[in-house]
Every structure is written in structure tokens, then in C-alpha cells.
């Protein structure tokens, strides 16, 4: 047995330490910034914080939650995520059900499938999309953040593959009892595929929560910016000068920025264990081909 030999044991010990070190290293920058956010601003500005808070305080978080603009942006982000996920999941799931039927049942299936796949391969690009939103009068309307990305061909194909694994007998029994396709979708396919739907739904949520660019270009009214866009303007755009004297003045904001980064990432960190559990499965299931 190879794993009893001395050389393999030595390798294994080194390997374990090495991989763990890489794992820790991956998280270290975030951990450091978390500690900064929990430190007093004097200590943070003096560069005294490393991997433990100096002058432990929640002051930065308290200040961030007193900031009205931040709270507005947080609310827009929640609104966007909930609405966007609900609309997107409904549109994609119901279409995926129809497309999961084979061509004998749904002759136009392949036509529709290609119609959606093309949207995945080719896009009009930034400027035509922007002009479209402008002409549709959707500037400053939350629908500009929801509708353009609602149809996600990739998610549709994932759901379609999930639906195909549902045993046909279930549906046939329902048809015998006089149910139609709509009924079969809502009463059989949706409940049976709940874990798969949750997977795709969770990814859609993360996508909406993290999306910042559409908010940046479509929301002219700064009160309508979702959190990710708001943070982009706050953290990134204000820091383009971080290599000169202005950086020093900027530094007084350091704990504040760090706390905002963590509040923004918190929902992702909360759902992360679920994401991690699901996506390994999701990738495996989605890869099942017939």
C-alpha cells in the first residue's frame, strides 16, 4: 500500500500543510480588512492593524448604518434581488419546462432552444442596449435592472436538464387524471425539482446582489443606486487617487470603507455554505447528458 511508505507520508504531511496554507492565504486579505473595520479609526489610519483588531469598536458599522444613502442603496439592492430572482426564475423555469419536452411532443422545441442559445453567443453590446433602455424610458426604473437579464439561457438549459430527469411516469399519471401541461408544471415539476430550483435561484440571487454596472449606467438618480453600484462609486471611484497626498486624507475613511465592504458582502457570506453544497451537485447534475 503506497500510503504506508515513508516517502508518501512525508509528502502527505507537506501537502496538507501546503494546501492549508494556500487556503488561509486566499482568505487573509478579507480577514485583514475585517479586522480593520473592527478597529478604531486612529489605529487603522496609523497602519497598526494586522490580523487582530486594535481598539476594538463597532463604530464604523454604527456610522455606516446611520448613513441614509447607504440604507437607501441597501433597500434598492434587496428590492432588486427579490424581484429579479422571482421574475427571472419564473420566466426561465416555465420556458425550461416546455423545452424539456422532446420534439415529438413539442415540435417547435429546437427552434426555441436555438432562439435562446443565440442570445448566449451574441449580443448587441453596451451601446445599443443602453440606447434601448433610454428609448424604453426605463432610466431610473428598477425594471432596467431586472428585465434585460431576466432570460438567462444558461440557467434555462440547466433547468431543462433537471426537468428531463423527472420520471415521465409522474406526468403521465397526471395527464391520465386530466391535468394539462400548466398543471403538470406547477403541481409536479416544480415541487419535485425544488432542490435544483433552489440551486439556480441562489445563483440568480448572488448575480443580482453583485451586479453593479447596470445600476451605474441606468440609474441617474443616486437615490436609486443598488448597493453594489453605490459601493462602486464610494470605494472604487473615490480611490483612483490613492497614490498621492489625497490618499492620506482618504485614509480617515478607511474603517468606514472596510465596514461597507463587509456589509455588502455579508449576504453572500451567509448563503455561501448553501452555494458551496449546491454547486458541486449542480455542476454534476447539469452535466448529465441524454
Amino acid at each position: 500500500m503506497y500510503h504506508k511508505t515513508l516517502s508518501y507520508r512525508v509528502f502527505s504531511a507537506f501537502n496538507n500543510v501546503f494546501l492549508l496554507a494556500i487556503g488561509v492565504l486566499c482568505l487573509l486579505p478579507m480577514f485583514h480588512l475585517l479586522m480593520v473595520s473592527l478597529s478604531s479609526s486612529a489605529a487603522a489610519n496609523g497602519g497598526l492593524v494586522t490580523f487582530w483588531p486594535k481598539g476594538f469598536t463597532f463604530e464604523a458599522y454604527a456610522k455606516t448604518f446611520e448613513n441614509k444613502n447607504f440604507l437607501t442603496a441597501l433597500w434598492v439592492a434587496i428590492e432588486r434581488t427579490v424581484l429579479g430572482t422571482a421574475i427571472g426564475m419564473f420566466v426561465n423555469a416555465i420556458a425550461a419546462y416546455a423545452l424539456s419536452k422532446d420534439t415529438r411532443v413539442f415540435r417547435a422545441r429546437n427552434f426555441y432552444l436555438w432562439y435562446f442559445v443565440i442570445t448566449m453567443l451574441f449580443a448587441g453590446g453596451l451601446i445599443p442596449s443602453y440606447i434601448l433602455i433610454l428609448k424604453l424610458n426605463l432610466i431610473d426604473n428598477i425594471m432596467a435592472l431586472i428585465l434585460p437579464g431576466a432570460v438567462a439561457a444558461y440557467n434555462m438549459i440547466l433547468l431543462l436538464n433537471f426537468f428531463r430527469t423527472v420520471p415521465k411516469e409522474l406526468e403521465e399519471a397526471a395527464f391520465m387524471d386530466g391535468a394539462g401541461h400548466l398543471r403538470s408544471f406547477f403541481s409536479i415539476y416544480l415541487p419535485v425539482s425544488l432542490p435544483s430550483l433552489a440551486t439556480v435561484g441562489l445563483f440568480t440571487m448572488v448575480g443580482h446582489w453583485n451586479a453593479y454596472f447596470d445600476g451605474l449606467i441606468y440609474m441617474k438618480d443616486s437615490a436609486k443606486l443598488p448597493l453594489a453600484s453605490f459601493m462602486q462609486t464610494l470605494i472604487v471611484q473615490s480611490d483612483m487617487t490613492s497614490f498621492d497626498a489625497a490618499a492620506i486624507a482618504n485614509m480617515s475613511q478607511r474603517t468606514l470603507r472596510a465596514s461597507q465592504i463587509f456589509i455588502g458582502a455579508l449576504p453572500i457570506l451567509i448563503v455561501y455554505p448553501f452555494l458551496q453544497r449546491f454547486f458541486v451537485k449542480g455542476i454534476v447534475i447539469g452535466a448529465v447528458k441524454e
Partner: protein
Amino acid sequence: MEANTSNIKLKSERRLGRSGYKQPWILHFMVLPAVVLAFIFSYVPMAGIVMAFQDYKARLGFIHSPWVGFKHFEYMFSNDYFVKIIGNTLIFASSKIVLNLIIPFAFALLLNEVRNMGLKRSIQTLVYLPHFLSWVTLSGILIDVLGQTGIVNQFLTNVFGIQPIFFLGDGTWFRLTIVFSDVWKEFGFNTIVFLAALSGISPALYEAAEVDGASRWRQTMSITIPSLLPMLIVVATLAMGNVLNANFDQVFNLYSPMIYQQGDIIDTFVYREGLLSGQFSFATAVGLFKSVISLILIVISYRIAYRFAGYRIF
């Protein structure tokens, strides 16, 4: 709606059809919302591409704006700066593609040797996490950590005694930062693909090798790597379609005017020319150029992947 009792039987026979299912008009109805949304938000902008061949003026619209043929494309290729950003894009994208194949591959092989399941899971949990954070969050972290007074420069000064490095302000360092921060974000996720393939290798192969007295190194070289090769080739082929995708979100959130020469990419250029300077037609032409090349590459790569590995997405 001729709901007539006399032809109900006839109708229901037709409705059930040969396959025993009802006629599918309801299925058309079910794809309808997606069809309409995709039409408005994907196909209409595709038609908007005509403005790449016009001098689009907002007040004239698509119909009355003057047609200029390939003027914008000619200008594009005669422009030194454009050649530069194509170069930047290719450098970023190809280094990321290569490193995001090799590193996850090696990492998966090493992770596969960890026998303690708890440890293996912990390592996975640590390295996957950055994948789910947005570039806004990660840029915020990087800007702080890599700043002149950030912890990385503090460390370098205190331990090695070197001058602070302008990671985001010096062209060469910026390029390295872009490539390695992308690896930081994505290598854990890409590892999964290879781990999944690793778990698919038949244990019988290893058992046979054991019996023949093969060392673990020998097993890796003769069983594991050859078994993973087809997967590696598929992933590498499919990555080809991304060779003009240097990742807008990442560059956009990390770059600054002082390193445009080494850091500007096609997508950020389109954004600035189009939305900030209002050169709608020119920006669309640049975007179109990128889309067309990418499309060709994607189609070729999928064909190759299908041809040689039987890979299909649906």
C-alpha cells in the same frame, strides 16, 4: 371556439395525437414570456448594431442618421491606441486562461491526495469563497491591501526592506495584479471541475496498479493524468472563446488613467468612448469587432470540443 358536442370525440383524438400527449399550444404559451423578453432585450439591441455603420445622432435616430460604411472600422485599425488595447486584452486574457487551467489542475491533483475529509472540505471552503464575491468587493479589498500604506507594502518594507510598490499605479505591477487577482478569485472554482473528473476515475485501475506495486507517483503519471487529459482538453478548448474577454468588471474596478497604456482593454475602452465621450457609433463598432471575433472563436472551439470529446451543452 366551436365547442360543439358532436365533434368533442374527434377533437380529443386529434388533441392527444400520436404520442399520447395533448396538443402543444400551451407549451408555446409557456415559452412566450421568455421569447418576448429575449426579443426586446437581446434581439432588438442586435439590430442596433447597424449604428456601427452610421454616424449615429440621437436626434436623428437609426433611420435618418447618415450611413458611413466601414469608416469607424478603418479608423479603429489605423489607431495606434486601439492596437495597444487589443494587445493588453490578449495578454490579460491568455495569461488568465493558461494559469486558470494549470493551477486548478495541479491543485486538484494535490487536493486529491488529502485523505482527511474534514481537512479537504475546509481547504475547499477557503479557496472557493472569493469566486462568489463581486469584483466591487474584491477591488475594495485589493485597493486597501495593496495600497501604498496597505498591509502588503508594510510587510514588504518591514521584512525585506524594499520601497513600497505601486501595485495599481505601475504598468507592469498592474498587469501582474490583474492576472494573479483573477487566479485568486477563480482557481478554487475551476478546481471543482477537475475534482469531479478525478472522482470519476475507476478505482479498479488504482487497485490493479497497487497489485503491480506501482508507487503513488507512478499511479498519478500513468492513471490519473491520462484520465484527466480529455477533460483538460475540453476545458482548454472552450476557454479559447474567451481570448478577447479580459474581464471588464475586474479591470474597470482596478484601473486608473495613469496605467491606461498597460491596463486598458477593449471593453473598458468601449465604455469610455461610448458612454462617457458619447462616440456611440465608434464604440459600437469596436464592440461589434470584439463580438464577431469571439463568436467565431466560440463556434470553432465548441465544434472542436464536440468533435474530439463529444462535448455538448444540451
